[in-house]
């Protein structure tokens, strides 16, 4: 449509300018975010960086990633970082100890490394036939049970990666919970925030459900949907709910176990007839994938919410009364 107004060459040139502007902005924001001594500023810049990255994903025709980056990379990570900054006074930030390398040597090394890696990347691209797995993945799409190719890779071709990835999420959240109880003190929210929460909460939940459902055919899926629900939990926590809307501790344990348990049950169930682990029968693939994704969504939402709380909510300790 714009093409009708502007000459083709101009469109090409505009794309090029846009690409270079994005690249320069990305590098500048990244350098500013990690270079500042003021952590508050660094985190703000990092969140802006994440949103810009989401834009780049959209530019590179990766809408699934754009959604995930905005929701998880910038959204959840940003919330976690800000929560950490709130809990830790800047003076009390633990330091891991810097190496005593002279700065010029480090800079020289960085430049050399960048040149070497860039050269290797160009060589790799120039030397490869550029085929890779794309054609294979797209050609098998009709056997995968879904029509969104990214979902097909995530939950069918390479479902085992995703299975273990849920293990990573579980490991991280168990690690967080093992560290100690969550902070109980909550500040009640004012009327404006409360009404915003009342507006956003149903929207986030509906959006989460929509992303889960649409993931089979269009950008979306369990992870983006889980991040939406986690965002709802973060909002609730900000609004003064100490448990961020999560069910009791027993419910939380079940939610955390759910994702992997359903995944494993489906994987084993389909292999009883002599097939391989995770080899879904063709007619059932779509339904089974949706089932797995629903469980994964709930698990991820619960895990991210617990990570935001930063420790065990009431009821996790054996002998503790549940709730409270």
């Amino acid at each position, binding site marked *: 449509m714009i093409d009708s107004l502007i000459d083709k060459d101009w469109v090409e040139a505009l794309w090029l300018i846009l690409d*270079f502007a994005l690249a320069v902005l*990305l590098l500048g924001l990244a350098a500013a975010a990690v270079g500042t001594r003021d952590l508050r500023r660094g985190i703000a810049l990092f969140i802006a960086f994440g949103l810009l990255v989401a834009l*780049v994903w959209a530019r*590179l025709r990766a809408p699934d*990633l754009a959604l995930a980056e905005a929701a998880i990379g910038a959204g959840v990570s940003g919330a976690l970082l800000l929560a950490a900054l709130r809990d830790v006074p800047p003076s009390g930030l633990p330091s891991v100890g810097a190496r005593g390398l002279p700065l010029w040597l*480090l800079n020289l090394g*960085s430049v050399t490394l960048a040149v070497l890696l860039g050269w290797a990347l160009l060589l790799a691209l120039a030397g490869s036939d550029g085929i890779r797995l*794309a054609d294979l*993945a797209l050609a098998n799409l009709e056997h995968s049970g879904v029509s969104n190719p990214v979902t097909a890779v995530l939950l069918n071709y390479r479902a085992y990666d995703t299975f273990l990835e849920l293990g990573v999420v579980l490991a991280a959240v168990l690690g*967080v919970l093992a560290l100690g109880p969550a902070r109980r003190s909550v500040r009640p929210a004012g009327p404006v925030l409360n009404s915003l929460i009342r507006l956003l909460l149903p929207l986030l939940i509906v959006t989460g459900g929509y992303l889960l459902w649409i993931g089979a055919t269009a950008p979306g899926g369990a992870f983006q949907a889980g991040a939406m629900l986690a965002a709802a939990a973060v909002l609730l926590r900000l609004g003064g709910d100490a448990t961020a809307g999560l069910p009791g501790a027993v419910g939380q344990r079940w939610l955390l176990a759910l994702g992997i348990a359903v995944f494993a049950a489906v994987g084993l169930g389909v292999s009883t007839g002599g097939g391989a682990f995770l080899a879904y029968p063709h007619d059932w693939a779509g339904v089974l994938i949706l089932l797995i994704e629903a469980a994964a969504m709930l698990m991820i939402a619960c895990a991210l919410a617990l990570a935001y709380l930063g420790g065990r909510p009431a009821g996790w300790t054996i002998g503790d009364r549940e709730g409270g």
Partner: protein
Amino acid sequence: MLPEYIVFGLTGIGLFVIGLRAALVQAAALARILAINVAGTGIFLVFVTLAYRGHDAAPDPVPHALVLTGIVVAVSATALALALVRRLPATPGEDGDD
């Protein structure tokens, strides 16, 4: 002849090196966690550039899926690291041996 969008791949390498350098220089744990996330995003950018095949060809879904996995892994690691950072100042030291 390489396509122009390779600029994103090289930007990814640049982000990786910026993050790596900062992770070595920065002393504060929180700043290091930021730097590691930036470096990781750089790698993801290289991956997604590999997947891009022009305006009108369907992109390679495999790197997209790998990056999605990578994003979730990164946020999990970040969550654990930040929980440690939040917990450390309140944790008393031991009796001082070693």
